[in-house]
């Protein structure tokens, strides 16, 4: 059985960069647009890297800033200064 | 099993018959007529006859269903609390063995609800 992790963001300006960064770092992930939200799912693991996000935004970015735009998640969370990981082990 | 609690956990049932001022609760289900979404909950007198229950309570409750006029409830197949049951029409509910919070089920052969959907 497939084991998907997912994250959903409010569809806004910040999230468009987030989605871009996520898709760049997780090329096998699937991106879905639904009214007012962006949902990304992937098999077993999804990672958001601070470095990629800072490149997209052209400024410093704190991983916890993501809390403002996230709607929901599925998977075990591991967060530190450099990344946010969702995972089924 | 009992409740895992910080003290001796014991309470009175909320719906004991004493709380209904001489009346009792009765539920009636007419299977295959889901126009009525669930069994009826009725407040009845224990000394009311079974015939009066059918004529004065059950018939008005089901009257808006097009099959109700054709239904011979007294001649139907009855269950009392899931056991086969032959009501004595002129005896009281109590004497028919229908106690507080009992459930009656009445099937009326040939009447299977509308649209073949048990409605």
């Amino acid at each position, binding site marked *: 059985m497939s*084991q*998907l*992790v*997912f994250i959903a963001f*409010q569809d806004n300006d910040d999230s468009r960069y987030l989605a871009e960064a996520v898709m760049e770092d997780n090329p096998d992930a699937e991106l879905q647009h*639904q*009214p*007012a*939200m962006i949902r990304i799912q992937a098999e077993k693991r999804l990672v958001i890297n601070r470095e990629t996000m800072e490149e997209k935004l052209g400024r410093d970015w704190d*991983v*916890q800033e993501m*809390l*403002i735009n*996230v*709607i*929901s*998640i*599925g998977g*075990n*969370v591991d*967060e*530190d200064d450099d990344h946010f990981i969702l995972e*089924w*082990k | *099993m009992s*409740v*895992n*609690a*910080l003290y001796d*956990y014991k*309470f*009175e*049932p*909320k*719906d*004991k018959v004493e*709380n*209904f*001022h001489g*009346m009792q609760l009765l539920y009636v289900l007419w299977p295959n007529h*889901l*126009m*009525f*979404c*669930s*069994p*009826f*909950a009725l*407040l009845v007198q224990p000394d009311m006859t079974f015939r009066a229950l059918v004529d004065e309570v059950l018939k008005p*409750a089901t009257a*808006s269903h097009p099959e109700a006029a054709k239904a011979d409830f007294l001649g139907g197949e009855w269950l009392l609390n899931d056991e086969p049951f032959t009501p004595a029409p002129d005896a009281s509910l109590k004497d028919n063995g229908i*106690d507080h*919070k009992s*459930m009656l089920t009445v099937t009326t052969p040939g009447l299977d*609800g*509308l*649209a073949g*959907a*048990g*409605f």
Partner: protein
Amino acid sequence: MVSKNKKLNLKDKYQYLTRDMAWEPTYQKKKDIFPDEDFEGIKITDWSQWEDPFRLTMDAYWKYQAEKEKKLYAIFDAFAQNNGHQNISDARYVNALKLFLTGVSPLEHAAFQGYSKVGRQFSGAGARVACQMQAIDELRHSQTQQHAMSHYNKHFNGLHDAAHMHDRVWFLSVPKSFFDDARTAGPFEFLTAISFSFEYVLTNLLFVPFMSGAAYNGDMATVTFGFSAQSDEARHMTLGLEVIKFILEQHEDNVPIVQRWIDKWFWRGFRLLSLVSMMMDYMLPNKVMSWSEAWEVYYEQNGGALFKDLERYGIRPPKYQDVANDAKHHLSHQLWSTFYQYSQATNFHTWIPGKEEMDWMSEKYPDTFDKYYRPRYEYWAKEHAEGRRFYNNTLPQLCQVCQVPTLFTEMGEPTRLSHRQMKYEGERYHFCSEACCDIFKHEPEKYIQAWLPVHQIYQGNCEGGDVETVVQKYYHIEVGVDNFEYIGSPDHKHWLSIKGKSFDSKAEKSEQDAA
């Protein structure tokens, strides 16, 4: 760059500001300070194993929450200034908000109370901090929801006395008793019930597809509070998963206790969410996703991944999940039929779905809608057209545990009502399902006290013996204004006047059929 090096990293900061702020008591016994931690039988050997993967500290919490609030209130203001209520898809949609405000928002407040309590009861500092933050979140949700809906209250009926209704109205005893059951349990059961079974496993179904639907129906205020609340929820869900893993890792004796809680609370939550199923399929005029599709994505797929992950602890999926999975084809239709026939006693209106909506349902429910449910609506629509709008004038039997009318059908037998009964200490009790009966059998003393609205009316405790008096005086539902059929209601006429039309019962009827 010196200042940058001085900054603590996330892990250190969390350690300093959470664990290191706690202390070991010296002149009081720990057992006396945290007296509620043991009685459920859960064994905790080492609280330091508790992990908060978000590593959120109070300073960061305030910063991000303040930012969320600013964004949210900017949208509320814009929505109100722009008369946003005039731009929703249809006024029928507002009825979902009436149910939300009376059924869900008071639960947010109950959650605030529940988390404040457990945030005091754990001897582990990490768990206490996470629960205290969640308590503040829940209070915020309750408040922002009331603020968002206060705008609708100015223009539509049925939104005027939500807290009062929550405590009294028959169908609202379903959400109320759900949360009362959880809050009166011990702290570990409360977290398993709310943080894990409800927040992690089930609330996505309410806050994600339904809120996306709100956006699709032009309600920017609701989608924004919904998603803003859900952004806290991501943290709550993580807490829920961590709680379960932590308890299971602490001691093998905890496994059967937690499994029973998961079985119970999955089912309690599933029954509660039956209300959401009809909100999604029937109360969103513009449809995004059906209840059965949402159930597939958010329970079968995501829940499946979750329970596969928990296998290694000896946890299996909830006992009655097969019944819940089968019910996805029927649930919303059975609920809507129930509320349609008891609309005389609700603070919102009901209606027969239009032709296009029914075609959508045929497409989404190919095996069940045309066979079992379309005939109901066609029959009732005909009755209505002939001046006999159907209402059920006899009160329904309620389940002793979930308090929903016993309206559900057996798995695989959609025309046979599911019903169970048993005797306990000489009294008879009735249930909607094997699962609710199981819950009763395990803790009968808890459920024999249930305040069942139908029985309370019959006992004479609701200010009147007839439905109209109870509804008007005891429930504070304005008869002829808030309740009954949508077509021809004051809300309907008001909506038509906003849209520059007038109410003509015949024309409206055919428009409804054509819609």
